């Protein structure tokens, strides 16, 4: 089962770091080499992915629409569900990227006796949006380790996130939200037999890696404390290309390894939907193929046509022999 494979992989990550740093003391490898290599793989991999996708021709307008397209003037059309021009495409895209509009349309199908019933099901949307925004906030918050002086907006974000002053260091709201959302997204896959059937290891692995990342982070902040000043000296060293592996607990290295693994895995997994969404021809095109003649596919070559005059030239003798009229226009000099 995919979930078991993914779980074993993630536990193996923890073991590798525990043995590598905790037992063998390879702090330079896990603290410097792995993060830099992972970031490089992430950066080059994503750029490669984008260029690769951009090379693929999209000869047809294959927009997924779910509304009335632009038609006759008196027919009411849906600008967002069937965008007609680039402006409407951009609007639709913004809502898709920031509000996950297509997930909001998610339906649930259930057999009630002999009847197949469809119903609204917003939980996936809620779980997804909570997860993504929490993750993004956590990412922004981590800029406090990569900037000095820390910009005021990042500090404010940090303080708002720890608004409730629970514990010391304060518990972040986003940590709670992301754990809850991840748990939901994981259980959702397990709970529904249909979904469980179509879920692969590559669906569970990103979930578990992010789980590992979040849990190691929370453990590090609240339970197995590390000297955060040393951690920041290390992260600042990373961005100044003068890194020095910090002398802190293994939990920090586990956290670092999870983010490195996630970065390296990013361009080659479903996580690449981060840039993929912009390359989806079902979303980034205007549904105007009835109004606009679009460029044909690049491999389409204009066929060699034979005009009537050329044909008449080829069969002129036969045409005259059989008494067919000759088109004199072909011989008129223009």
């Amino acid at each position, binding site marked *: 089962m995919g979930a078991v494979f993914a779980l074993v992989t993630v536990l193996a990550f923890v073991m590798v770091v525990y043995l590598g740093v905790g037992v063998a003391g390879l702090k330079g490898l896990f603290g410097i080499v792995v993060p830099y290599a992972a970031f490089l793989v992430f950066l080059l991999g994503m750029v490669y992915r984008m260029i690769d996708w951009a090379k693929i021709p999209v000869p047809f307008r294959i927009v997924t629409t779910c509304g009335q397209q632009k038609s006759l003037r008196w027919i009411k059309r849906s600008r967002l569900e069937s965008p007609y021009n680039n402006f409407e495409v951009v609007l639709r895209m913004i809502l898709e990227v920031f509000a996950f509009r297509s997930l909001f349309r998610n339906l649930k199908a259930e057999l009630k006796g002999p009847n197949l019933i469809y119903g609204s099901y917003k939980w996936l949307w809620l779980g997804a949006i909570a997860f993504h925004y929490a993750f993004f906030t956590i990412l922004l918050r981590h800029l406090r380790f990569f900037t000095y002086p820390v910009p005021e907006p990042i500090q404010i974000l940090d303080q708002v996130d720890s608004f409730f002053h629970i514990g010391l260091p304060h518990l972040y709201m986003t940590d709670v939200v992301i754990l809850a959302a991840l748990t939901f997204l994981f259980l959702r896959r397990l709970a529904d037999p249909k979904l469980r059937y179509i879920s692969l290891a590559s669906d569970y692995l990103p979930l578990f890696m992010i789980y590992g990342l979040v849990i190691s982070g929370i453990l590090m902040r609240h339970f197995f404390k590390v000297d955060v000043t040393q951690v920041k000296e290390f992260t*600042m060293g990373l*961005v100044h290309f003068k890194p020095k592996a910090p002398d802190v607990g293994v939990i920090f290295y586990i956290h670092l390894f999870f983010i490195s693994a996630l970065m390296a895995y990013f361009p080659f997994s479903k996580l690449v939907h981060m840039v993929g969404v912009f390359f989806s021809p079902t979303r980034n095109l205007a549904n105007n193929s009835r109004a606009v003649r679009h460029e044909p596919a690049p491999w389409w070559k204009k066929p060699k046509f034979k005009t009537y005059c050329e044909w008449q030239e080829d069969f002129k003798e036969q045409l005259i022999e059989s008494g067919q009229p000759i088109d004199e226009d072909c011989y008129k000099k223009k």
Partner: protein
Amino acid sequence: MHDAGKVIPGIIAFVLFVTVPFWTNFGKAAPKPQPEIPKEYKKCVESKEFMRREHMKLLRKWRFDVVRNNMRIYINSEGKPINMSLQNECLRCHSSKKKFCDVCHDYVAAHPYCWNCHIPPEERKGWATKEVKSLTEEASSEQPASHH
């Protein structure tokens, strides 16, 4: 490549976005926080490593013990009894908030709320000497009784 006019700016935006920490720090020297350690006192409540990691948890425990449980004595790992008090105990040695607490807190953008209630010590020239100790005690004795 198709739509190069849109894809290339997109790629540039992406690269700039994910490399923010690198180019915002480019050319700046990596700062190194150096909190001033009291010269005349050699030992803190617990070991240096423990204090660096866990001082916030320790202080929170102290607050809880004093305020909720009316316990004022902390027995450290060496078995030595210590008066649980930020102003009277911690600040006795670390008499400058600016040169000690704030150095790392500013560095990692931590915002401890100690000073919402506690009074930070006056900044003095004679830093971490025995004379300052007595001055700090005087200063703290001037505070209203509710603070003791």
